[in-house]
C-alpha cells in the first residue's frame, strides 16, 4: 500500500510537470488549429534563457518567470513571422504540420550548433525533502506542483469566465462567427500563441529541473509524451490535458513500481490507445472536430 501511495504521489509530480506544457499545447492547437510540433523547441529555447539567467546568478524561480515571458514572445514571433504567411496562403493542416516540424528541426539544431551537443543543468537546490512513508517530495517539486496547479486553474478559469476566454473558445470553434460578434480574431490568436508560449516556457524549465539535465533537443524529445497527455484528455480541453497528464504520470510510476520499469512507457501508451479506442475524442470530448486553420 505504501508503495502504491508513493507511486501515485510520484505520478502526480510527473503529471504536474507534463500538465503545464500539455495545457499550453492543447490551448494553442484548439484556438489556432496549428498542430505545432515546434512547441518543444519553444520549451527548450526558453529553458536556455532561464539557464543563462540562472548561471548569471539569478534565482531559478525568477529565471523561470523570465523564461515564461520569453517563451511567450518566441511563440508569438514564430507565429507572426513564419506560420501566419503560410496560413494566409491557405496551406492546409497537414502542410502546416510539416512547416512546424521544419521549424523545430531548424531551432533545435541551430541551438545545438550554438551551445554544443552537451548537457546543461540549472543551479537550483532541490531543497528540504518532505517524507510521507515512501513518498518523498522536495521543496522544489512542491513548488513545481504548486505552479502547475495555479497555472492550469488560471487558464481554466480564464477560458471559462472571462470575456476574452469565451472569445478564445468561440474563435476556436467558429472563427467566422467570432468575427461577426466583433472579436478581433488576430489579436486573440496572438494572445493564444503568447499564453501557450508562456506555458511552454514554464513547462520547459519545470521539466528540465525535474530531469536535472538537458540538451538543445530535450524539449522536442519530450513533446510526444506531452502531446499524448493532451490527446488522451481530449485535444482542446485544458482540463483534459491535466487529466491526461495525470493518467500518463500515474500509470508510468505505478507500472514502474509494480510491474516493469523497462516497459513503463509501453504501459502508458497502451493505456492511451485503449482509452482512444473507447473514447476516440479523448476523456473530455469536444463536439466539433474537423475545422480549418483559424486565420
Amino acid at each position, binding site marked *: 500500500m505504501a508503495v502504491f501511495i508513493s507511486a501515485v504521489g*510520484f505520478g502526480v509530480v510527473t503529471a504536474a*510537470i507534463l500538465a503545464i506544457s500539455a495545457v499550453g499545447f492543447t490551448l494553442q492547437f484548439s484556438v489556432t488549429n496549428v498542430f505545432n510540433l515546434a512547441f518543444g523547441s519553444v520549451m527548450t529555447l526558453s529553458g536556455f534563457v532561464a539557464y543563462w539567467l540562472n548561471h548569471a546568478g539569478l534565482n531559478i524561480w525568477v529565471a523561470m518567470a523570465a523564461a515564461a515571458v520569453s517563451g511567450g514572445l518566441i511563440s508569438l514571433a514564430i507565429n507572426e513571422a513564419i506560420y501566419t504567411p503560410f496560413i494566409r496562403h491557405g496551406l492546409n493542416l497537414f502542410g502546416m504540420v510539416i512547416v512546424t516540424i521544419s521549424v523545430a528541426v531548424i531551432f533545435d539544431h541551430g541551438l545545438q550548433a550554438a551551445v554544443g551537443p552537451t*548537457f546543461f*543543468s*540549472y543551479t537550483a537546490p*532541490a531543497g528540504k525533502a518532505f517524507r510521507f512513508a515512501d513518498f518523498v517530495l522536495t521543496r522544489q517539486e512542491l513548488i513545481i506542483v504548486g505552479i502547475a496547479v495555479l497555472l492550469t486553474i488560471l487558464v481554466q478559469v480564464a477560458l471559462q469566465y472571462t470575456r476574452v476566454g469565451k472569445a478564445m473558445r468561440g474563435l476556436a470553434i467558429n472563427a467566422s462567427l467570432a468575427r461577426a460578434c466583433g472579436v478581433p480574431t488576430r489579436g486573440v490568436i496572438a494572445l493564444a500563441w503568447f499564453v501557450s508560449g508562456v506555458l511552454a516556457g514554464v513547462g520547459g524549465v519545470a521539466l528540465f529541473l525535474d530531469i536535472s*539535465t538537458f540538451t538543445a533537443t530535450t524539449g522536442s524529445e519530450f513533446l510526444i509524451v506531452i502531446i499524448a497527455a493532451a490527446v488522451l484528455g481530449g485535444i482542446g480541453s485544458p482540463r483534459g490535458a491535466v487529466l491526461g497528464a495525470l493518467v500518463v504520470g500515474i500509470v508510468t510510476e505505478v507500472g514502474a513500481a509494480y510491474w516493469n*520499469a523497462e516497459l513503463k512507457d509501453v504501459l502508458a501508451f497502451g493505456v492511451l490507445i485503449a482509452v482512444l479506442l473507447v473514447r476516440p475524442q479523448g476523456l473530455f470530448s469536444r463536439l466539433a472536430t474537423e475545422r480549418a486553420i483559424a486565420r
Partner: protein
Amino acid sequence: MTGKWKSFGIAVAVVGALGIAACGSSSSSSSSGPKGNLEFAVFHAFSGPNAAYGPEAAAGCYPAIVEINAAGGILGHKVHCTPVDSKGEPADAVPAANRMIASSSSLVGVIGGGSNEATAVVPLFQQAHIPIFSTTGQSSFDHNTASYFWRILSPDSAQGSAMAAAAKKLGITRAATMFGNDIAAQGSAPSAIAGVKRLGLALPASQTLAVGQSSYRSEATAMSNAKPQAIITEADPQTSATYFSELSQVGQVPKLITDPVSQEPNWRKAMGGAIGTTLLNKQDYAVVAYSPATLPAYKVFTSELMASAKHVPNPSQWNADLYSVADYDSAIIMALAMDAAHSDAPGVYNRYVTKVTAPSSGATIVHTYAAGKAALAHGKHIQYVGAVGPVHFNQWHNAGNAFAIERYVNGNWKVYSLITAAEINAAAGF
C-alpha cells in the same frame, strides 16, 4: 591519404593477390627456391560503415613488421602486411577470405575478423589451417574450439564481468545493478548481473530502465529501499542524470561502479549537474579496459607505430587504441611462434602460440620480437609479455585483457586498482 587513395591501395593489394594466384596455380606452386616474403593479412572492413576497423588493425600490423624486419625477419623471410577488405559483412567477407586462402601461398597468419564477420570466416581459416587472431567481441567465441582461432582481448561481455569483479574488489557485499534498456547498456548488463551472483554478492535490486523518461522516482525509491552498498550501472547521460538526481532526493547515492561511458565528458557534465561533481567524483569507480602505458612492449609499439607513417596515416591517433595494440601483439606472437617451431608452416607453428606466451617457471620474459628471437636462438623457453600485458590463452584460446578501476582525481583519471583477467574470469565463470 584520402579515402579514395586508400581504397585504391586496397584494390591494388587485392588485384595483386589475384595475380599471385594466377602465377601460383601455373608452375611454381611446389617450388622451394630462394626464400620469399611472408604475409600477414589484415582482414577487416576497409569500406562500408565500419571502414575504420581496417586502418585500426593495420596500425597494429605495420609497427610489428617494422620490428620483425628490423630484427632480420622470420627464419630469414621478410614479412608484409596485406590489407584485405572484408567490408564488414559476411556476404563479402566469405568470398574475400576464400580468394585470399586460394591465392596467397605466402599467407602465414590473419590479423582480423571483427564481430561482423568472424562467425562466417573463422571456419574457413580453420579448414585452411591458417591461424587467425581475431578481435571479435562476440561471446559465442568464449568457448571456442577452433584450434586456429586466437583472441587476445576480452569479449564485450567482459565489461560486465569486470564491473562485478570490481564490486568484489572494492569489498562490497551488496551490489545492485541499474542499466538502461538501450543496446549499448544491455551489452554488459547480463554479465554484470551474472557476475554479482557468481561472486556470491547479494543483489538487492536489479533494474532495467526505459531510457529517456521524465521521471524515475518509483525506481529510485525502490533502489533506495534496497540499500545497496554500490550500484553497478551503465545508462546514457540523460537517463543517468534524471535517475541519480531523484535517487539523491529520496535517499543516498552509494558507490557507483561505472564503465567507460562515465569517462565521457557529456556523461560527467550531465551527472555532475544532477548530483554535483563533488559527490560524483567521490562515489564513481569507473571500470575500463586496462592498457598499461608503462609496459616495455607498449613503448616499443608506440615507437614502431611512429616509424610506420608510410603505411599508417596519422599514426599517433592509434597509440592508445587497445585494438591496434592487441593486433600488434598478435603479429609478434605469430612471428615468435614460427621461430620457436623453426617453421613458417601455419599448421606447425600454430601449436607453438601458447608456448611463447604462457607463463612458466623457467621461461625468459621478453617484450620485443628481437629479444624473443635471440632467446629462442639460445635454446631458451620464452614468455612474451606484450603491449597489452601478459597474454595467457586458456583452453578456448581466449586470453582476455586486464581491467582497471579508475577514479577521477584533481581533473585526471587515476588507476585506483587493477582487475586481472583471472578475477574477471571468476566473475564470468570460466
